[in-house]
């Protein structure tokens, strides 16, 4: 008669092996199955690809330089050569109105802006700036917030108190007020931004990227620090400590992997927020500076043309809407994929 131990060994050998699955692979599988989230990801990637292709569109399709005013230029509509800027009618002939959409990709598809530039080409270039700043500032923000949160949460005590109060000070400012103040100070001065030997020109995209990243650091810091405080007390961290792991190993090998999902969930949502913030600042004239354009600055240019040439405003507005919507839906999908219990909790 086989002993109990032998019986267990036999049973184990007879059973098919259960493949151990990496939690990241499980999350990816859950995300892949979420069709709405994947559609959003597809839409976002499409916007990215189209924006990246801006120079190709401007050079090979529209045949324009979207950064040069074209107030005295002409284009072709229905086989006829027409001026890009058209003088007002009536007796007084007041004002100059840019040409409207021609729906012809090679001739001012979405019309011209107030200085005669191709809106369609501007829109794609604007997307490059908006996405670059949005993604860049969100990544910078998440990186900075994670590092600070890891330090604060791991060391605790005075370090935590100091860093948390610093974050509270930034948090205390209304986010747009802080962004506007910093942008006005740094962007409207000719010298730009100087820290020691590092100089960022006022017209550089880095300046709005840094400003926007800075103002959102506390918003990522708080949940990540909470997560660190929770993880740092777990048994596996104590076990690692007991095995003699140093602080760096504890932080990067034990704690960081367990708070990374929080950061990843926040990332698309923060990107959506930073794109909105960039658009708002550029709309106010204190975001992206010429010769660069962004969706917000195109909307600003279009505000005087809302009644006669609404596409100058609608097109970038639509792009912002689609981008932010896709990122928010994707963010929800990522959260559900990484923490399905959260979804269960929400759905109750």
């Amino acid at each position, binding site marked *: 008669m086989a002993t109990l131990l032998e019986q267990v060994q036999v049973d184990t050998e007879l059973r098919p092996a259960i493949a151990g699955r990496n939690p990241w692979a499980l999350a990816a599988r859950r995300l892949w199955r979420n069709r709405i989230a994947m559609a959003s990801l597809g839409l976002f990637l499409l916007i990215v690809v189209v924006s990246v292709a801006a120079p190709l569109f401007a050079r090979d399709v529209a045949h324009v330089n979207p950064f040069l005013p074209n107030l005295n230029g002409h284009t072709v509509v229905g086989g006829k050569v027409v001026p890009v800027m058209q003088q007002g009618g009536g*007796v007084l002939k007041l004002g100059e109105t840019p040409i409207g959409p021609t729906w012809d990709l090679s001739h001012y598809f979405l019309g011209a802006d107030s200085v005669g530039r191709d809106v369609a080409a501007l829109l794609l270039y604007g997307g490059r700036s908006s996405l670059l700043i949005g993604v860049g500032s969100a990544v910078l923000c998440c990186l900075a917030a994670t590092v600070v949160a890891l330090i604060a949460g791991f060391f605790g005590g005075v370090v935590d108190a100091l860093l948390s109060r610093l974050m509270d000070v930034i948090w205390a400012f209304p986010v747009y007020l802080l962004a506007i103040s910093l942008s006005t100070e740094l962007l409207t001065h000719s010298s730009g931004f100087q820290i020691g030997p590092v100089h960022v020109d006022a017209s550089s995209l880095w300046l709005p990227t840094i400003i926007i990243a800075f103002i959102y650091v506390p918003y990522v810091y708080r949940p990540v620090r909470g997560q660190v405080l929770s993880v740092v007390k777990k048994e596996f961290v104590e076990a690692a400590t007991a095995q003699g792991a140093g602080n760096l190993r504890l932080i990067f090998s034990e704690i960081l992997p367990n708070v990374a999902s929080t950061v990843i969930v926040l990332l698309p949502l923060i990107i959506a927020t930073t794109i909105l913030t960039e658009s708002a600042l550029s709309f106010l004239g204190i975001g992206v500076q010429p010769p660069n354009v962004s969706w917000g600055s195109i909307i600003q240019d279009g505000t005087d043309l809302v009644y006669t040439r609404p596409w100058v405003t609608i097109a970038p507005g639509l792009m912002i809407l689609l981008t932010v919507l896709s990122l928010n839906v994707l963010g929800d999908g990522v959260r559900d994929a990484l923490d399905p219990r959260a979804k269960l909790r929400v759905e109750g």
Partner: protein
Amino acid sequence: MKIRSAMTIAPRRRARPLHKMGLGAVIAALALTAAACGGSSQSSSTSQAAVHKGGTFTILANSSFGVADPAQNYTLEEWQLLIDTHDGLVGFAKVGGVAGTKIVPDLATSIPKPTNGGKTYVFHIRHGIKFSNGQTLKPSDFVTTFNRQFTVPGPTSFYSGIVGASKCSTKGCNLSKSGGVIANDSAYTLTINLTAPDPELMDQLTLPFAYAVPASTSPKLTGNNVPPGTGPYMWKSYNPNTEAVLVRNPFFHVWSAQAQPPGNPNEIVEKYGLQVSDEVTQVQNGSANEVFDGDQIPSDQLSQLNSPKYASQVHVNTLTADWYFALNTSRPPFNNLLARQAINYAADRAAYVKIAGGPSLAVPTCQILPPNFPSYAPDCPYTAGTNHTKWTAPDIAKAKQLVQQSHTAGMKVVVDGTNDQVGKALVEQMVSDLNAIGYKASPQLLAASIQYPFVQNSSNAAKWNVGWSAWYQDYPAPSDFLNVLLGCGNIHPNSDASPNIAEYCNKTAQAKINQAESMAATNPSGAAALWTQVDHIDTTEAPWVDLYNPKQIDFLSKNVHGYSWNPQWYILIDRLWLSS
């Protein structure tokens, strides 16, 4: 001479275009004048004028004009109201058209001839005139007015030529004691003594800074409380966040219909805080009577105003003003004459005119003095073609040739301007024009409140090469452009109030300026010819890229009549009347 303070930015940008008065309006104004002057035919005219009286005239403005003290405020927005509530010794005739540039006696009985080699003026003050608080006007009230020019922070330079002015400061001033302004209340005379003859004194005395206020007025800034005046209206209230309200002055009577006629509306209200597009909508609806910010009407609404429906409500007038880019002559590449001339040839002025709203709202120009201005003679060397009196098109080939000759091709050029929509477009066009002839230009956009002091201050000279600016006349004298903006004496190192932005100093031109000023009183036609020469010298030396002379739109509600455009004060609000 006259050094504008940093506050000059306010009238520059806020200056409103005025309309040239049509013949019909001139006749109507003359009829009103005749009616006010009395005479046998006055009964019918008076009754007509009486019919026009009444109602509340409502102006809508995007923002207020700041501190209201007339000793400090330097904005056309308040000046258009102050000319209805206050008076000076002299004033511009309150009529439309060219007649409005004539200086007439106001609180003085006549315009005195200078004595003592052009340095002393004795004014005889009118009797029986009362301030809106009931006090009787006395010559000594003017001493307070002139003292306040120095004790209240403001553009004191207009009156710095008065004897004793150099000893005045915000801490104290007694021009009476120093012998600069001497009042004799029993003889009803006021004597002004100057340190040197000033041919523009009368122009300067027409400005609201020199308007009479009671002698009891505080020597310090009165903030938003406007001291009583002698005009047909008085200030009932002023809140820069909401509105200003002017009501009739119960003590007013007509003493000179040319200088100060009785107003038509019973009340004038100026409301603040609306977007310009909303101002237009309200005037279209008849809820208000005037859009103050006509120069900022959005393109969309300009298209609407082209409708025949509004033809009688829209008035367009050319301004005696310049919009220009100053070239920084203190550093390469524009310390080189050929480089300056090159960009003048390359500038596509038709494009700049389109940015300003098209040919109906701006006229391209190459020279400093604006059209319809004293000493103006057409001059445009920087145009394609052979007619050098009018700009027709850029001459890029000539511009490129000059760039090569100047050995400045490929240099980096920073174009400085404001970050508002029009400012941005102007800078982008200039960057494009510079790049087209071989420079490496980049924009530098600053907030409007920062940009003007920034380009004036020579400590920033290394940071820009081409700087946008605009200038609207203070009064119709060539020196107001040629000396103030390009005179050697108006370069003030490291100051935010250095109106010669280009830091341009031409010895020949300056000698002619000095000569013109010294002979203005004795040989006005000779002086005028000299000013014309200075204009042409400066145009050839190209310290600026002059872009265009703007026009102004006044949009009024349908029930407003009696529109008249004074070249100095623009729309004359008190001349307007309302139908039911």
